[in-house]
């Protein structure tokens, strides 16, 4: 599927989709997109769209899943048949999907204040609606927002970004064709700079790794600012609306 004739970075310093190396794809963040979930979100980065729903904290579906002093986190990932994700099979037991699910769980276990919810379960359902590279980082971003929406206590925002290396030039936020051709690093970080996930499936030189990781963390910071703005916007609107409702009750409308 990787077409060798695709120019990763042309002489004009532009990528195949006309972005420059340090430009992220257009980002859209939406909260409470799923009516039945306790918290949900839909995140699009370019043509990759992922929706996440959070259920819980609730009683574990299976007894065995409960831990006496903290909440357990369960993650499930599904890919819509029309998503166009050629790299994963859509069957439920697919190894790639299980791996993505495990990566998300490991990213969030240290960030969710699980000790506040003993013997309970927090279930995260990820649905990839369309795929064009960077499923994992988009899913992590969506999960963060869904958890925030569900009102679950987090240490801080977790944001995530993929980045690749073309010769010596790092490229941020890879699309599917770029992902197929370049060594890729996925970074998830807290605003403090703490890295909660760094995943690589291809070889990358040790000297470059540090530079890329720093850059990834920096990019995560940019995403966090955007996320923070969206969350605060929405909260402001909710508060305003609640104010109105309360005012209405008082005035008896």
């Amino acid at each position, binding site marked *: *599927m990787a077409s060798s*004739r695709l*120019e990763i970075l*042309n*002489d*004009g*310093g*532009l990528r*195949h*989709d*006309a*972005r*420059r*190396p*340090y*430009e*992220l*794809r*257009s*980002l859209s963040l939406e909260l409470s997109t799923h009516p039945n979930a306790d918290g949900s979100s839909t995140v699009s980065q*370019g*043509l990759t769209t992922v929706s996440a729903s959070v259920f819980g904290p609730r009683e574990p579906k299976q007894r065995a899943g409960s831990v006496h002093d903290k909440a357990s986190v369960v993650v499930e990932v599904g890919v819509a048949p029309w998503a*166009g994700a*050629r790299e994963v099979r859509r069957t439920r037991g697919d190894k790639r999907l299980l791996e993505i699910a495990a990566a998300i769980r490991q990213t969030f276990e240290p960030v969710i204040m699980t000790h506040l919810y003993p013997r309970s379960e927090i279930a995260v359902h990820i649905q990839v609606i369309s795929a*064009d590279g960077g499923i994992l980082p988009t899913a992590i971003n969506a999960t963060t927002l869904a958890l925030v929406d569900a009102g679950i206590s987090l240490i801080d925002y977790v944001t995530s970004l993929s980045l690749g*290396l073309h*010769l*010596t030039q790092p490229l*941020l936020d890879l*699309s599917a*064709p770029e992902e197929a051709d370049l060594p890729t690093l996925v970074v998830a*970080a807290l*605003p*403090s*700079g703490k890295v909660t996930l760094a995943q690589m499936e291809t*070889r*990358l*030189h*040790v*000297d*470059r790794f540090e530079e890329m990781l*720093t*850059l990834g*963390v*920096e*990019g995560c*910071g*940019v*995403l*966090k*600012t*955007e996320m923070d703005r969206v969350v605060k916007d929405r909260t402001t609107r909710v508060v305003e609306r609640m104010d109105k409702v309360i005012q209405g009750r008082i005035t008896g409308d």
Partner: protein
Amino acid sequence: MMTTAGPSHPPITILKRTRADLGLAQNKFLKKTAKGKVLSFLRERYVRDDIPCGFEGCDQCRDLPGYKPVLQKGYRHTKIDPHYLVIDTNIVLHQMDLLEAFPPDLALIIPSTTIRETRHRSLPLYNRLQQLVQDDERKVWIWWNEERRETATHAEENEGPNDRNDRAIRLTCHFYNQHLPIGHPLIVLLTDDRRNRELAEAEGLVCCNTKTYVDGLVPEVRQDLVDLVVGGVDAEVVTRGRRVYEEYLSQDVLNAGIKTGRFVQGYFNASQYNYLEGTVSGILLAGRQAMNRSVQGDLVVVELLPKAEWRAPGQDVVDADVDQRNDDVENEVEAKEKIQENVGRPVPTGKVVGVVKRNWRAYVCHLDRSSLLPEAQLASLSQQTVFATPLSVTLPRIRLRTRQAPTLVDQKILVTIDSWSPFSRYPDGHFVRALGKVESKEAEQESLLLEYEVPYRPFGKAILNCLPVEGDSWKVPPKGDLVWRDREDLRDLIVCSIDPPGCQDIDDALHARELPNGNIEAGVHIADVSHFVLPNNPMDSEAASRGTTVYLVDKRIDMLPALLGTNLCSLRPFVERLAFSVIWEMNDDAEIVNVRFVKSVIASKEAFTYEAAQNRKDGPLKDPLTQSIRLLNTLAIKLKAARMRAGALSLSSPELKIHLASSESAEPIDVEQKQLRETNSLVEEFMLLANISVAAKIQETFPATAVLRRHGEPPKTNFEALQDILHKRRGMTLDVSSSKALAESLDACVDPQRPEFNTLVRIMATRCMLAAEYFGSGSVSKEAYRHYGLATPIYTHFTSPIRRYADVLVHRQLAAAINYTPLHPSLQSKSHIEKTLNVVNKRHRLAQMAGRASVEFYVGLALKGAARREDAFVIRTFRNGLAVFVSALGLEGLIMFKDIEYDAENYIITVGGVTIGVFDRVRVEVGVEKDKNTQRGKVKMVMIEPVNQTL
């Protein structure tokens, strides 16, 4: 938010997309996989406002990233007003030679649509376009039209990709017209597509086709360019006459056919002996129609004919020059094409039904004098159609139109093929440039380099900038300097180098000494080229694309700039040099006890020639240096014996030495075969050992990407013909079950009366083998690493980094393997290694051929003075002649007879009552004859004994 202090890169931003961009934001296309499944792809794309227009003094674009004031004054030397040219893809694809010849001050605007389409259609042309763009002398501006908001576009309903691209290019013209300030130079669209021109004119653009454009230039410019215009051979010629060839099948049919096994895909290989015959992967193509417009090296698709139509390969020698003498350029008179019924076993026969990829390039040709109009022999400048005969006999004649035919008659010229229509017996081409007078040294040399695609331009400034700033005063810095980090001081070792006389690029040196424990320490020291040539700088890229140094008889085309090759990296005596050393500890039987690899500093004590070293060894001296050579020699003899036991082949190909009277004159005085001394073998054994040790080390450390060299086992069928000849003519057998068996049976092929017989059989056996090649260790299975000729399970090239690029890669990998430096990322990528090695393999092959051709040229010159009588051996029989090999000159030639009887079964011919067969010794007179039409000198052989043809 976490930010590092003052980031060294532009700020990270998130692109925003406005609703208005939505139509342009996505690009959807379908693609068919090899299995025939159709996949749909959806790609995102952004449109930008920060693409600069490149116009000098443009207020809006001046601050945008990448802005350069390239577009200055419009071009004036023409009938049209001052203008810039915008070119479309077809111009790049067909008129590249013209573009390269355009005056540098003619400003070109190249839309990215053109660049992208070129890249998609032809990578070689894309690379040439890139060179054009990067040339600072020229005014070439790339306009990223697909990326800029005003000119971005997508296919409309019912619009094909070509129409869309044409529209995108027209949009570019509109943009410039609006964007540039009033009074700007004219924007002229250059296109050879009539429909596009009509549309452009309807939209109010100025446009022009190449022919009219060049005709409109001022005469001084025009005369240089006019012959370069492709399409000078008009459409009328093409449609006239009747169909000569079948049309090719469509791509889909071809693909389907290859998949089902109905068709076979392979490279077209024209026969050396018969211009009407060729082969594709062992399938015979007989006759012009069957070859169906294939040219040497094209990747073609062949359909196998039914078994009833299979034929035996021709046993005649058919000379194209003689046969086609009367063909007329303008009129396609069907010349009689005699297809003879050949006796012998029919082989699979087929016909070409399609071409996957053309291998056309510029060919060195002579103008065929007979195709000129009689009146044009006088200096008339009218345009006429003529034939150009390529130098190589495997290529067809090319028809071209030129206005300067009379001046070109005695010149070597460069011609490219443009097209070959099914209505024309010959391909159409155009003149690129003249190389010089036939048989002048310069023209011959350049034509040789061009013919074998040797990059021979001088090194550019960017490349020379990568050399150490000290130039030739560079010295190994005193101890303690950074250069000495992890480097061993071996300056006290008694190291010497042994090379051919006059060698300037000394890349290896040796030493040996006895150790206190009774073992022997032997070392090979190789110039540390990787210290100077760093990965991925311009010098490295140039070396990678040159691949190897090319040795011609009187010239050397270096892979690395001379400062490195013949000075800083050359392990000259009496100076300190950086080296990469392989040091073994060996026991008395030359078995390796221990090996280590280390970067070092050495000081060579002497630079011997093979002869001097031999004399020193055999002489009476007993100083350490002489002892060291003797020690090396005893080890080498044991190493060689061990290698032979393992089944290494000693093959033979004649090596000649040309004596030149002086370096200025081109006249060779004498030709002799190279003499081999014991010391040749000494150096060879240690180089082999170093290569093998290094190969094992890098393969162990980098199993997926180690650069290795292998020599595949030749298929048994390759030897069938030789086995049959040997059996029938001599009653000898050749056992090809393994390299050891082959080596032994070759040893047994001796004729006590004729010592040279064995050499002849070896030469013929060598021709049955495959070529050795470089490869990345991850791309084949471990069993396939074997080097068949050397009978070693693993091999690489480490010992000549000055003249071979693969060795430079191996040096880098070995340095990483001993933790001296980290491995450059490019050497970890399997695909990058493969790509690089493919180029190196190709260059290596061509360099060998160029070297041989150069020797042949000088042999020809030596013969021009006086014909020589030499002994020759028959290597092949034909129905009308013999192919003989003259070992004294390393020449192969044909001898033709009129009345002969031919016995194909037993490889014998009978001429005038005398029977001659393969392997027989004959005496021939070798001379040079000039072809009257082409002025091409050709080696001609005439038999003297046992049949005297000269009588």
